[in-house]
């Protein structure tokens, strides 16, 4: 089979200037397990576009670095 990579607008935005390198709070609480750390920068980002716009990530972030938007298809 042949695959391609498509661009997708993801609902979760992380303000990298506020994201703490040692923190994993948002990653630990996400029920869909879609957030990870970028190994190069130590910053969190949304790796998989599978979001319930439920907000634990935003709520548990100690620095308010996360903004969850309603996914584009529903907005």
């Amino acid at each position, binding site marked *: *089979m042949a695959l391609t990579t498509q661009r997708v607008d993801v609902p979760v935005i992380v303000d990298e200037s506020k994201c703490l390198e040692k923190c994993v709070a948002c990653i*630990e609480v996400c*029920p869909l397990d879609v957030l990870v750390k970028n190994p190069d920068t130590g910053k969190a980002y949304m790796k998989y576009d599978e979001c319930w716009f439920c907000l*634990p990530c935003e709520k548990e972030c100690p620095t308010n670095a996360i903004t969850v938007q309603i996914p584009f298809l*529903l*907005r």
Partner: protein
Amino acid sequence: MNTQYLKTDFLVVGGGTAGTMAAIKAKQASPESDVLILEKANIRRSGAIAMGMDGVNTAVIPGNSTPEQYAREITIANDGILNQKAVYETGRLGFEVIQELESWGVKFQKDHEGNYDLKQVHRVGKYVLPMPEGKDLKKILSRQVKRHKVNVTNRVMATRVMVQDGRVTGAVGLDVRSGDFVVIQANAVVLCTGACGRLGLPASGYLYGTYENPTNAGDGYSMAYHAGAELTNIECFQINPLIKDYNGPACAYVASPFGAYTANAEGHRFINCDYWSGQMMLEVWKELNSGKGPVHLKMYHLDDDTISEIESILWDNERPSRGRFHQERGENYRTHGVEMNISEIGLCSGHSASGVWVNEKAETTVSGLYAAGDMASVPHNYMIGAFVYGRIAGQNAMEHIQSLDHVEPDAEFLAAEQARIYQPLQQPEGVPHTQMEYKLRRLVNDYLQPPKSPNKMDIGLMKFVAYEQTLEKMGAKDPHELMRCMEVHFIRDCAEMAARASLYRKESRWGLYHYRLDYPEKNNEEWFCHVNIKKNKAGQMELFKRPVEPYVVNVDLEEEVYDVAVR
């Protein structure tokens, strides 16, 4: 990839509402026993109540209502098909659960005299207890889990229950981060994995834009089926009236006690009760097809303070992103009705009646296997029902395991399951789970969304059966994608069960949930029974009638017909 071997006395699969309670109650019953919660996400914020809850929908509080009255109301709402004894238990034990939750710090609304401030949303009776401060529910439960010394393994997804010589011996699963294969020996297992929330495809096309927490993909329905347990009422789908596109509750349960109601485009009422039922959904469907749609939740006739109070509840608890959804669209409850739509189908006994067959002790038909919460067949059970049945399962399981010893897992079974789980990793260039799932769920919409047509369902069934082979083309690049692949298998199993059960019951019942165009009437003579499904010895899906258990509360169903239409 490694294999992890774990051993426990009692295994709880799914640490949501029912699961956390099951584990806590098991530990209270037998503090020296080992109890393990296996959770696909993280119990701190998982499942339907991840962000809290707006209220208790089924609170039977002494002085306000009795378990008899509650059992009667649900019997009528569910067109008579239920294990009434099981529903009665939710009414009988719910108050103790509420009191215990309160002692742990959960807050329920009280009036100025300190009495529980119950609201009427059901057709008859006050069972809704608001929780305007219900947002920390899951954190409070997690704290109790820890305090009771329950072991927790987060981010491991169960894929199969182990059954040997007719009894449960544990479960196997996948660590969704490391990719490890996990084998857990246990003397009893309770499945608490929630609804099948990813069966139909939302109209938005977004796979995870569901009413239910999308982690709940029907895992427990499928695992119970493969373990040989009976499932019931699968044709009684879950279909909800939801905010269009957002696909979450609007929510009339919160707003109607303040004076809001569901109206058509002309602003008129067409239903006289906002409690969710198949009969209500049929009225919504008719209204939408009458030219008087769209329908909306109407609040704009209320005063500003009342609307502000409703907003503070709706935007701060169970689905806090509702506020930003409306704001991004420039919508305001003061000027706009909230446009509603009919959701895609799902399976859920928490709201409807489709689930794994359980009796009033939370026992399935497999020895040592229990089920509780949305996936267990106690109709309209909602949150308190999940807590009650978690509690019942935890207590009974601890009694059941007293004289049992662990059994060595069957090596052949483990090898086969391991091969099944990891197959997509062998072909990372295979079809992505997203496309596999999208197409499957689109087919569910095409062929199963009510009203149900027999020929369409026949085609659907054929396609779902054939999809088993299509799934072999699925590829995964990492353990996370592997988790999603396994979920697509669960969804396919549920789709096949939904088609078969809907074809089997040759009548209409539960309003829109099972509205068959070829048999538009209810037929009590032939169909006053459950339709049950199980995997037979030949490995095939077998359907059969199961009689309705004798009622404990007398209800004359000829006299008492559930009708919510405004005429």
